[in-house]
């Protein structure tokens, strides 16, 4: 950590290095900037060696949970008596998160190259990229990149004479937050209603069409070609021991220059704010999320928390998708929390009781509170309802839904109380 802090330039453009090149999304640009060099190397390696390389590099999933990618790949059965599938989760829907769509817009071929390498490593011959349906422009660009890759022989039969075949299908989702949950995504991809599946069986045993499947985030897979080219040691130079590598931090909100900042894992908000030009108009920071609205919020106290998987967890939150949403002192916490709660109410898939009913209840209470019709009792009720949802729901959506509420009340209880002040009921004769 001291190592990263001492670096003169905190930015480490790896995934984003091509983003500012003219026509960065074109195959020709990609090829000029060492694109499709990693697959030449990878296709000469054995699948096992590739899995081992990714394990050694310590690449952790960039979709939020941070599961080691190499370990996940090694769950795939070694034999091929059933077809294997690689599915790319590009259903980026977490509020505040905006890293995968820009990546696919600016540099789609890095994802495709990653898909080829990962598919080869997992003996998959069909890869699906599940993109959220709203980002039409991105889908078009991705489709075009896939076409380019087919035409250039990077996809299809016998890729670069290696004997390896791979098809990529770009699939547009229909706009449901839950479809970012990997099993709901698989159901949706199969044409069913997007709701999470019971696990086990896990996707590596029975995933897409009940065949061995690995679901990986866009950023995770797009990182793979650089690891193949640079090696595990190079990769581990960035970030921390347990969370190595660069990461795209999506900074939004009240900063001077919001945007994507690629920096080593373990970078602090203080450093990120410097890169983003500081707080907008100098208005002081009030609260922020380290990784989207599902991660418990932080305050100005947490400016120096290292933003890696361990650091965020230690400070009582999660790294999530490194969607850093920054709010200054003009923002009411109960209001922001209410907006988030309404998002989760709208996006709850309805499968399980705690999430379906709980988000419905919480958002109503919060709305009432913000309108000044709440009571102090409501705050305790909310916390208890949150407790009844957290860890009780079918998938993590319910857990995410209560994060902003619990952390908001934890750090800013006074603000919630203030909203209730006018409703303190003095019962007639209560003093007796």
């Amino acid at each position, binding site marked *: 950590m001291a190592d990263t802090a001492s670096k003169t330039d905190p930015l480490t453009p790896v995934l984003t290095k091509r983003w500012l090149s003219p026509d960065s999304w074109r195959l020709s640009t990609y090829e000029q900037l060492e694109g499709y060099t990693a697959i030449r190397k990878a296709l000469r390696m054995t699948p096992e060696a590739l899995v081992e390389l990714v394990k050694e590099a310590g690449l952790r999933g960039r979709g939020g949970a941070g599961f080691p990618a190499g370990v996940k790949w090694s769950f795939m059965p070694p034999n091929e008596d059933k077809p294997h599938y690689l599915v790319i989760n590009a259903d980026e829907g977490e509020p505040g998160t905006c890293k995968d769509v820009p990546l696919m817009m600016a540099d789609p071929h890095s994802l495709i190259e990653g898909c080829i390498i990962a598919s080869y490593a997992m003996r998959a011959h069909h890869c699906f990229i599940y993109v959220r349906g709203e980002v039409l422009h991105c889908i078009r660009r991705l489709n075009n990149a896939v076409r380019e890759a087919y035409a250039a022989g990077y996809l299809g039969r016998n890729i670069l004479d290696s004997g390896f075949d791979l098809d990529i299908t770009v699939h547009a989702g229909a706009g449901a937050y839950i479809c970012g949950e990997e099993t709901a995504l698989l159901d949706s991809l199969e044409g069913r209603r997007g709701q999470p599946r019971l696990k086990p069986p896990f996707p590596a045993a029975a995933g897409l069409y009940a065949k061995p499947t690995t679901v990986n985030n866009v950023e995770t897979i797009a990182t793979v070609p650089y690891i193949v080219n640079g090696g595990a040691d190079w990769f581990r130079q960035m970030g921390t021991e347990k969370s190595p590598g660069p990461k795209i931090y999506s900074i939004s909100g009240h900063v001077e220059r919001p945007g994507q900042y690629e920096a080593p894992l373990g970078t602090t908000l203080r450093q990120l704010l410097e890169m983003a030009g500081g707080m907008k108009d100098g208005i002081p920071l009030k609260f922020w999320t380290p990784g989207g609205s599902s991660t418990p919020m932080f305050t100005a106290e947490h400016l120096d928390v290292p933003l890696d998987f361990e650091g965020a967890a230690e400070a009582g939150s999660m790294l999530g998708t490194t969607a850093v949403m920054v709010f200054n002192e003009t923002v009411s916490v109960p209001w922001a929390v209410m907006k988030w709660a309404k998002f989760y*109410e709208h996006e709850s898939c*309805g499968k*399980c*009781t705690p999430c379906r009913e709980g988000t*419905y209840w919480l958002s*109503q209470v919060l709305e009432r509170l913000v309108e000044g019709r709440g009571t102090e009792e409501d705050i305790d009720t909310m916390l208890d309802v949150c407790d*009844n949802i957290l860890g*009780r729901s079918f998938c993590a959506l319910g857990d995410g839904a209560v994060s902003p509420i619990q952390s908001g009340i934890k750090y800013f209880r006074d603000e919630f109380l203030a909203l209730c002040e006018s409703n303190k009921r003095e019962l007639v004769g209560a003093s007796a």
Partner: protein
Amino acid sequence: MTLAHDKPTETQPEVPEGHVRLTIDGQEVIAPKGELLIRTAERLGTIIPRFCDHPLLDPAGACRQCLVEVSMGGRPMPKPQASCTMTVADGMEVKTQLTSPVADKAQKGVMELLLINHPLDCPICDKGGECPLQNQAMAHGRADSRFVDRKRTFPKPLRISSQILLDRERCVLCQRCTRFSQQIAGDPFIDLLERGAQQQIGTSETADLEAAASTTPSGEPFQSYFSGNTIQICPVGALTSAQYRFRSRPFDLVSTPSVCEHCSSGCAERTDFRRGRIMRKLAGDDPDVNEEWICDKGRFAFRYATAPDRIRKPLVRGEDGQLRESSWTEAMQVAADALVKARDGKGIGVLTGGRLTVEDAYAYQKFARVAARTNDIDFRARAHSAEELRFLASSVVGTTPEHVSFSTLEKAPIVLCVAFEPEDEAPIVFLRLRKASRKGTRVAYVGQWTTSSVRKTSGELLACAPGAEAAALDGIPEHAKDLHEALSAEGAVILVGERAAEVPGLFSAVQRLADGTGARVAWIPRRAGERGALDAGAVPTLLPGGAPVTDAQARAALEQLWRLPEGTLPAEPGRDTAGILAAAAAGELDALVVGGVDPDDLPDPQAARAALDTVGFVVSLEMRPSAVTERADVVLPIAPTAEKAGTFRNWEGRDRPFDVTLQNTGALPDCRVLDTLAVEMDVDLFTQTPKAAWADFDRAAGAVPRTVEAFQAEPAAAQEESTNGHVKLSTWRQLIDNGSLQVEEPHLAGTARPAVIRLNAATAERHGVVAGELATVRTERGALTLPAEIADLPDGVVWVPSRSPVGVYEALGVGHGGAVQLSAGSGETGGAA
């Protein structure tokens, strides 16, 4: 199962192979691998509350009501786990709500959440009083609600079929109904729509228009023969039946176990009545037979017994030619006098229909043999053949569930259905075949088209022209070698339906195939009483228990048992149904005793009616006016199933006894009526009560030695070529049609499958028939016009339902395998008018 030992440290019980040892609430328990925690706890007597869990459905884990705390190898899992989805593991420690405050709070929390949007309309809800939500909320919930905001509401109720109503605001979204429909019935016409708190059950018809395009799987209404089960497994009052809605409170009902009177499956049922009226029927729980399911016909078709036109007093035809109510004594006297005269004249024929209990069938045959002194008795009120009777005598009489049973089907590697459409003819057999097919049983059909049975059992179809089934079977060893090989495996089963009697040589072909492969053969008739009537001897060639009437030794034994003078029992085989009717029409019989026969079920309804008109005297034992009572000289009212005791013997040969549901209605079972009638004829049948009849039958079947003659298969007949310009008719009855036991139930009728003429595209084109428009099949006898639907039938074949609503035999005079002419439109231009 082995339960906890008092001192587990001293003598650890052995863990058997395939089992694990775990503790639940500190109590040690050994459980089979793969068992769900919720069931293991249940065996220990700890009921964990649940909604979505159902032992016959795949786990869902949706309601989260059954959360418990689990530790593995001493390490507690961070979150409470759903005990309905987690299986037992060695060394697991489980704490339920009894010992874990975490589990208890989790359960109370989920219960509170379930109730926030649930209306407090228990006082007017059908489920109130027997509601799992109500009961579990009382046991595991908070006394008061902290929810003070707006409840989610929906317009109510939603009619998702003519029979099923849905109150969406009551629904807890456990998905039992949708999972039942998808997994068990295979009719995924209801599904979840919308999401979050707006998530709801619906059909394509209930979905919002804009959602319809993306959220509904089928675009079809909820049309299922099994939809009623969703009402029964609904853990709240969200699904109710149009028939029962707002009719009664559970605590006002008296419940009796009963047996379904409709098909030959013999389902266990529960009949609930109030003040002498049946209010509803529910599926009983019988793992060996119907598990926990019944079909909609079994559930809803019971109001025939309260039809306003039910005959409750004997009727005697007066000199004016009109039937008039009479006393029992008068009616018995008139009938007995005429029957004695007929017996001493040209004789009496007895036709019994296929819906009798074993006891009643036994009484009919004893009446025939002892009082009428004839073997002219036949239960087969449908198309039948001598070949069929020989097959039944050799291969079906006396078989028990040890031969072929529901569980045999479930375990079989392959089941071949011949001339048998399980979903229409024996719905519970269909459910078991579907269950088997989902576990890997191969199901094959010799039939005409890819019916819903074929589709929903992932079946393979050996399509052949109607009438050509025998040839198709004979072709299996050569042309379908893999099928032949599969049928040679241990446990393979061939199921034959009643339609086989319409195909000459088919039983012989079945026997050849069984002989060649070693597969077991079971006969599945359509009606509840057929198998019992066969075993009771209500056939022209067999005595009770199955010995041939020609067997002198058997007759002698029976004569001794029945205390008859030696040589009194008729020794010559009698006439079958067709023979009896022909004889009656030709004046070779003087009287007919007819119980529950509808001439429209017979291959030649016109001839049957003519026979009834011609014959000198007709005694009809009936419940409601029919074509037979219209022609009867004496009508004796008999009891419907709910008003008598008795036993149905199902297709497996399993006895399904039931007691009287509605006591003291005054209605008499057939066996009692026949006993009294025989007494008037100076003969004792000893069948005064079903109990007495059963005892007599039991003694007879046990006393009479039975020599089983092997079925002599007839050589394969040459297939006649289809005559020019004709098409072949394939037909069978749909489950819900115009059957006489389905009257007075418009909601059930609304779920009947539409009646259509099915044919393939090429045949349609050749005859100018357009899909969706009317087409007509015609014979010299008459015509039948229905909308046309394209299906994968063989070329030159059409299918029509036998009685939906028009009787095919009546309209066309031919049945399955007959030749008909096909034309487009209603056929008016054909010059029929």
